[in-house]
């Protein structure tokens, strides 16, 4: 535990010391280019991209807004869980916002994405609304998956978001399949499959890596390393915790996952690489403030000091906020944005609370497609004609 905190602090110290900000003009306009130096990337069997990232104020503003929306949504989910409006399992993403923001900034909606159960934010990053997420968490029919999937199962077909998977590591070979389809259809798109450091020990990940490398599939494996596989620290569950090297013959890059610009840089680079050469692994060094899920206090296996240190020194939203303010962004406008986001989340929660529960007969919809001659038996053995109705029209 002490070794882990020291390592985390060291990486953070390296980051702030090399953070140099250059301006091209004296007054910062929204579209002025700002050059930020991020922490250098670690590379395995590949040349690392440059760690000087170009950005603009308007881009930083968009990043800030998006991350803040995610943060407030997850905090609202926390409160609703404690109020017992959300039941079941609820895995929160706060602390890891920069990972998703950076990824989405580097990709398009035509690139497929698949992730684990920590997927509330992926739904909104792929075009969903906060209200849909909250309604899904409450189990209401206006939710992202009609209230039938719950916290771990959010999907968005139009935006190529393939979920939301409950079983750890099961999404990794799925991602390989998605990427294969992109290649087969000759699309200039990649698939991103996201998993955590715990899942990096699953056998199916290595099966997927082997297949992807063998067939040159344009897939980006993203390991969101938040240093804990639920309650077990990475040094206790992985012999080699440099997850970006675990691909062996598959090249890898490691970036600071709390820095949205570093993530964006490395993902754009990875996308170019994947389209040309095949699979690549990205390890994004991040941290989750909450426990593994709402049933886990998160403090039995790590100290509160560590969590607080992360919050004060490496928080992704604070970092972008500092950049914005240092480059002349109006603090009052930031406050206004904050307020709007809070209101958006509060409204979403209220609307979700008022939404209806899914009707009973939706229970046996969409178990099978074309369910002719299939009968789903009921509790007493009686028969129920199943229904294929992906629109849930009635």
């Amino acid at each position, binding site marked *: 535990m002490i070794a882990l905190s020291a390592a985390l602090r060291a990486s953070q110290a390296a980051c702030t010391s090399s953070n140099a900000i250059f301006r091209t003009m004296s007054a910062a306009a929204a579209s002025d280019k700002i050059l930020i130096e991020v922490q250098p990337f670690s590379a395995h069997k590949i040349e690392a991209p440059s760690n000087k990232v170009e950005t603009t104020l308007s881009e930083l503003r968009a990043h800030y807004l998006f991350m803040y929306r995610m943060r407030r949504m997850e905090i609202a989910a926390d409160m609703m869980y404690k109020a017992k409006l959300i*039941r*079941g*399992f609820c895995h929160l993403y706060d602390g890891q916002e920069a990972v998703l923001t950076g990824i989405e900034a580097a990709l398009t909606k035509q690139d497929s994405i698949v992730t684990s159960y920590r997927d509330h934010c992926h739904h909104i990053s792929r075009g969903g609304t906060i209200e849909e997420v909250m309604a899904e968490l409450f*189990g209401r029919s206006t939710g992202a998956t009609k*209230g*039938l*999937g*719950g916290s*771990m*199962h959010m999907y968005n077909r139009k935006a190529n978001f393939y979920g939301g998977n*409950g*079983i*750890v*590591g099961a999404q990794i070979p799925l991602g390989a399949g998605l990427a294969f389809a992109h290649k087969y259809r000759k699309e200039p798109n990649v698939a991103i499959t996201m998993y955590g450091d*715990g*899942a990096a*020990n*699953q*056998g*199916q990940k290595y099966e997927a890596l082997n297949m992807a490398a063998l067939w040159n599939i344009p897939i980006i494996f993203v390991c969101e390393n938040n240093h804990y*596989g*639920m*309650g*077990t620290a990475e040094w*206790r*569950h*992985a012999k080699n915790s440099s997850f970006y090297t675990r691909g062996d013959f598959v090249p890898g890059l490691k970036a600071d996952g709390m820095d949205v610009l570093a993530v964006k840089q490395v993902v754009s680079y990875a996308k170019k690489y994947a389209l040309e050469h095949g699979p690549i692994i990205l390890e994004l060094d991040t941290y989750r403030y909450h426990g593994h899920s709402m*049933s886990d206090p998160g403090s*039995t*296996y790590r100290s509160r000091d560590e969590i607080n240190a992360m919050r004060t020194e490496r928080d992704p939203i604070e970092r972008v906020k500092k950049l914005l303010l240092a480059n002349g962004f109006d603090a009052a406008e930031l406050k206004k944005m904050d307020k709007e986001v809070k209101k958006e989340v509060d409204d979403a929660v209220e609307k979700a609370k008022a939404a209806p*529960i*899914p009707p*009973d007969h*939706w*229970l*046996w919809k969409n*178990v099978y497609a074309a369910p002719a001659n299939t009968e*789903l*038996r*009921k*509790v*007493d*053995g009686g028969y*129920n004609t199943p229904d294929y109705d992906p629109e849930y029209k009635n």
Partner: protein
Amino acid sequence: MMSSVQGLFSIRLQTAIFSTNYKYIPAVFASVAGRFIHHSPECSFATNLDSDAKDTGNPSRKINLCNAVNDALNIALDTNPTACVFGEDVGFGGVFRCTVGLMERYGRERVFNTPLCEQGIVGFGIGLAAMGHTAIAEIQFADYIFPAFDQLVNEAAKYRYRSGGTFDCGGLTVRSPYGAVGHGGHYHSQSPEAFFTHVPGLKVVIPSSPREAKGLLLAAIRDPNPVIFFEPKMLYRTSVEEVPEGDFEIPLGRARILREGSDITLVGWGQQVLVLEQAAKMVKDKLRISCEVIDVRTLQPWDVLTVEASVNKTGRLLVSHEAPITSGFGAEIVATISKRCFLRLEAPPLRVCGMDTPFPLVYEDMYMPSVQRWQNYCRSRQS
């Protein structure tokens, strides 16, 4: 060659005739009924007075199911120096606190966390057991047992058979919490017991109360065959009972009769037994139907004789489980009893089980074979 085949056939015919020879049934029934004592008129949580549990004569104390499991693991580690307990997050006590204190008492060499790899955990356990050690593996939720399915079915179950008895992995016990918990959704509520009963070579054991859990777990760990022990997670905290301190075992392969009755036999296991008990009580109070409630305890091999004797007494059978009805273990019970008690049955045997859909989140109430549904079906079977 032909004569030996004919010989086999004649033996099977004779057995078939014997099994339907009612002359023998009352004697079997009498001895069985005498040995299994039922009860629980007042409380919903059955207390087992099974006289064939080897009691230490020690005092007992009131503990819940997860403490009973912890107790059993402590005894297993204490009495067997080769025993190891491993699984995801067992070190700090596990997600249900069943392994609390073990690492502190027995050390990291014997109680340790594994990485997130179910297939690896079970495969590793099989290897350890093949060396003669006692490997007690934990799969964090039964829903996650499927990556290990190949190891269990193809490796563990067949090791003794395919090596001609040279090797075996009898020291392997896989513990896993199963069953609905009220808010588990698709992947924290499944009951996969039926898949494993279909594999000759494995044993499947499911306790329904703290005393059962401790006795059955100790028996399972010491059984010289690979055993899968499903623990009803809903009962970890809610089921409290007087559990004898000290070492005792409840034999595998024997069912227990919780409540004697004369009108219908209700068969279940794990947390469903609680539902059956409550339903039996309700139905007795309201409809004056006397139900005999049986907890099979071991699903593979299951106690055919006890259930058969009971159905021969009552003439009606109802099996209930949470798992989906199609090809659930209830099907096996119903098929076997239908054959053995065919001429005695007064009504077709019935199954009241989970629906043929993935385990739902918001619809859990509708899905579960609950007490309300039970009442309806008991009533309908009576008529």
